């Protein structure tokens, strides 16, 4: 009769302990569902991308689960390293252009927007909420060989044959800036908006010329916003595939184009995963550097 008693005590003890720890887990009903969702549909799929970059598939599409670096060697031998570098370069150029255009715009909205501020901001956000496939198509209507720009210039007699703008690297960069610019403007706007105007007044009163105030006070204080914008522009630009497809016409391939090519066209998951893993690594690097340089503010502005 010893055993049941003991078992009962054990069960009671266990129940108590479980009860206590459950009582402490009051947050679980709230964060549990998202936690599970993140693990199942975010972390695990990304993990499998990395896993697949180290295996190969056999004749009937079966995975051969032995660790190999073959995919990486193939990628390098096939010259995909150049495409990855090009993606990095294009993303960097896009980012710099977005910053050069977006900063003055955000500055203008904050300083001179007045009662129109909300509307002006809305006009920046709105295009980014419309389908970007359609926006790229519309860009084509403008820069294409029989597009608006060319027909206008031809009609004016300024050129005798259409300019080749579409399907060049310049068109791709134009498209990238067009699509991702709003994501640079918004965090910089938020950052500028959060500054205390008395800082500028103090700087001016102490004799700094307006430009000096800008370069020594305004710009350094909006670093968080700039870096947040960089995360929001650089990363998607790095993984872009639709812009090179639509405006580069398949002649200008980027890393995203390769991922799409291998996964959708060829069904070659290991090669696609290898390129995607390169992208993930590059992105982690960019995010890490930006957070390191910008601290908490950057994180808050990204969100």
């Amino acid at each position: 009769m010893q055993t049941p008693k003991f078992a009962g005590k054990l069960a009671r003890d266990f129940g108590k302990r479980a009860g206590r720890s459950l009582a402490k887990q009051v947050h679980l009903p709230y964060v549990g569902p998202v936690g599970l969702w993140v693990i199942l549909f975010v972390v695990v799929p990304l993990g499998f991308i990395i896993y697949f970059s180290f295996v190969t598939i056999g004749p009937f599409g079966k995975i051969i689960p032995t660790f190999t670096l073959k995919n990486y060697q193939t990628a390098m031998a096939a010259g995909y390293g150049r495409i990855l570098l090009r993606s990095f370069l294009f993303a960097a150029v896009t980012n710099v252009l977005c910053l050069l255009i977006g900063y003055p715009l955000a500055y203008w909205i904050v300083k001179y927007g007045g009662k129109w501020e909300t509307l002006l901001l809305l006009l920046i956000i709105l295009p980014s909420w419309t389908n970007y496939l359609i926006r790229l198509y519309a860009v084509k209507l403008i820069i294409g060989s029989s597009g608006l720009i060319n027909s206008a210039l031809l009609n004016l007699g300024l050129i005798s044959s259409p300019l080749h703008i579409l399907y060049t690297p310049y068109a791709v960069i134009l498209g990238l800036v067009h699509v991702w610019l709003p994501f640079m403007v918004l965090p910089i706007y938020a950052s500028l908006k959060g500054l205390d105007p008395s800082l500028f007044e103090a700087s001016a009163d102490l004799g700094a010329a307006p430009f000096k105030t800008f370069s020594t006070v305004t710009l350094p204080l909006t670093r968080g916003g700039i870096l947040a914008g960089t995360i929001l522009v650089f990363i998607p630009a790095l993984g872009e595939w639709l812009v090179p497809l639509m405006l580069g016409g398949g002649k200008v391939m980027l890393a995203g184009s390769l991922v799409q090519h291998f996964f959708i066209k060829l069904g070659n998951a290991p090669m696609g995963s290898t390129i995607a893993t390169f992208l993930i690594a590059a992105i982690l690097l960019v995010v890490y550097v930006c957070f390191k340089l910008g601290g908490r503010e950057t994180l808050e502005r990204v969100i």
Partner: protein
Amino acid sequence: MKSWHIGGKTLPVIAVLVYLFLWLPVIILIIFSFSADKFGIRWEGFTLHWYANLLQNVGVRHALRMSVTVAIITMIAATVLGTLAAYGLYKYKFRGMGALRMGSLLPIVTPWVVTGAALLLFYTRVLPIPLGYPSILIAHITFSFPLALFVILGRMQRIDWTLEEASADLGASRLTTWRKITLPLLLPAIIASVMLIFPWSFSDFTITFFVSGIGTTTLPIYVYSQMRYGATPVINTIGTIFVAAPLIAMLLMNFLQRRRAA
């Protein structure tokens, strides 16, 4: 007071050019959607013909129905997930908070192709989820819930929570407190999140393209398939709808906020 403003003359010029740069393609698209030109690429006189055609186009109707269904389910599911998580993150301290935040940030900072490819790989190689409604819904909820979470979390900081404590002190059960106090307090944030997620899900192309499989079509996928046959006025008309949908959502949100404020 001395002046500290710079660029008073050049900034407006830059601003006008940027707005033009952002809006010109969209405006051209809208104008061409009313043009009689049968390719929809130049102006040949006003017509509503293409909109009438659109209403009769079975392919468009199917795609539209699917897009709206997906967007509505995504909007509800993502908002429920996001609201609960935001509440948990705001109200409690627990182990793994940072991990949860970072994990929720991942779908925002991962490029769409990578998210799309990862989910496709997961569906086809790991957990057999049929490509179609199930795969598209899971994907849309995955890239939408962080939006709800962070929008609501941001707004929670500006809410006066004493009412909730009072309710608990007066003996209301957890559920009653949620129903009578917490939800009404969160309602503006929830509305904001819903209004953001609907157009977000409705207009997604890349991720849906990866996970939709053969046969199922949302409106952006339909547009893409039309583009492969060259320029047609259908694209202009659908494009105009895509511009109008978030515009209406934003105006509605603005209107609702003003009514609450009044």
